[in-house]
């Protein structure tokens, strides 16, 4: 299978001089699922934000589906890489679930009717079509997460990047989310501290430490090696 993500020698330094990433090399094949593990502040989220160009490398390259993340490819890359943020409240900003999910298709230039059709299909995929007219703040945490994922799926991405997707979810919500994600064909990168969730979905894991990937392998092996 072809590579959907190829990251070479990625460095990132914040404005205050903090070196968040120190030479990360990473690849992911289309359709594969990997869990990013590691302590808080080890660079996992900073790494993820590079994948759809929200942050730009201080050094190194990020290539998505054979397109380097540059200004020239930014719009196409943002359609290919769907980022699901930790706090769904930050992600949902339109008055209704339907309008929120339709945001990306509209931004991509689809007509309101086409965008609505895409949004309804994405809501159906995550089992939320009945709540399409609801305001996001009237939804439960699990429902918000599903709508946030629908908002990403509406762009037909090739890669889903989920940052702490089980945060704010109760155990049934976590299981339900894992079941939903396991049905989606896209490649997935899961940033998580939730090991049962990582085991349920990912075939392998990478371990971040001080801005570097220090190990990659089967989830159980990584968990055991780092006593995670």
């Amino acid at each position, binding site marked *: 299978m072809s590579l959907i993500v190829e990251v070479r020698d990625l460095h990132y330094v914040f404005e205050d001089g903090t070196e968040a990433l120190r030479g990360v090399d990473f690849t992911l094949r289309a359709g594969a699922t990997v869990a990013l593990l590691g302590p808080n502040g080890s660079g996992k989220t900073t790494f993820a934000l590079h994948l759809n160009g929200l942050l730009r490398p201080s050094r190194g390259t990020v290539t998505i589906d054979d397109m380097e993340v540059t200004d020239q490819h930014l719009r196409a890359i943002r359609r290919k890489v769907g980022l699901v*943020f930790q706090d769904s409240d930050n992600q949902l*900003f*339109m008055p209704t679930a339907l309008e929120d999910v339709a*945001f990306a298709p509209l*931004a*991509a230039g689809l007509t*309101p009717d086409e965008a609505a059709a895409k949004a309804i299909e994405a809501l159906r995929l995550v089992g939320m079509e009945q709540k399409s007219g609801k305001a996001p703040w009237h939804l439960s945490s699990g429902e918000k997460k599903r709508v946030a994922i629908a*908002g990403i799926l509406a762009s037909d991405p090739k890669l889903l990047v989920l940052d702490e997707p089980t945060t704010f979810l109760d155990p049934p919500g976590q299981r339900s989310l894992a079941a939903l994600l396991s049905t989606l064909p896209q490649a997935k990168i899961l940033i998580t501290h939730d090991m049962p969730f990582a085991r349920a979905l990912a075939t392998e894991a990478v371990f971040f430490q001080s801005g570097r990937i220090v190990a990659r392998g089967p989830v159980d092996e990584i968990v055991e090696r780092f006593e995670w």
Partner: protein
Amino acid sequence: MRHARLELWSRGTSFAHRRHPAAKITAALIVLVSIATLRPVHWRVALAYFVFLTAMTASARLPILRVHLAATAVLPFALVFAVLSLAAGTPERGLAIIARAWLSALTTVLLMATTTQPDLLAGLESLHAPRFLLQVMQFLYRYLLVLVEEAGAMRDAAASRAGTVGVLEFRRAAGAAGVLFGRAWTRANAIHQAMAARGFTGQIPRFRVFRFHPADLAFLVAVAGPVVALRFIAG
């Protein structure tokens, strides 16, 4: 929360809710100008406007008392000027300031309670309001809510440790304002990242396309007609 209530009201399905936002904005502007030009001796006209706006609230199937209460948010500011007028020996002018401020606020609340925020911006756009101004408005609205939510979260956190936290105690908390803006900035940044990640390039796309129907013109005439007529009759 007040903003959540307004958003909830704005998604109603009454005749007023379904009208073109430009028609509602134009009608509201005409009402506001009529109210602003009322003189202190026009108290009967002010009363008629109050009845008219209350009837509109009812016809839009909105909770009358709550809408009236929402409009009182401006009274503390108006009261300052009213007290100054009272001190200057012109109490009727002071009362007129309060009446005009409250009726204007009621008109604005009615507009916002019958029009969703994106539709309101779409209406202003169709009235050729400057695009830059509209973008500032849409971000101001989104981030103002962030600021309100963060202030609420900080107040709850303080209250949970201190029993109760009144406005004065909250203000006294050293650095609270700085922390509030810091937190709000962090969240605003997260929201902007989430928007950019989904293709936001400076303008929130419109989900609905509005067309001006004869019913919108009828609405505009039905609202503006009596208001302007009353204003001219009053002289």
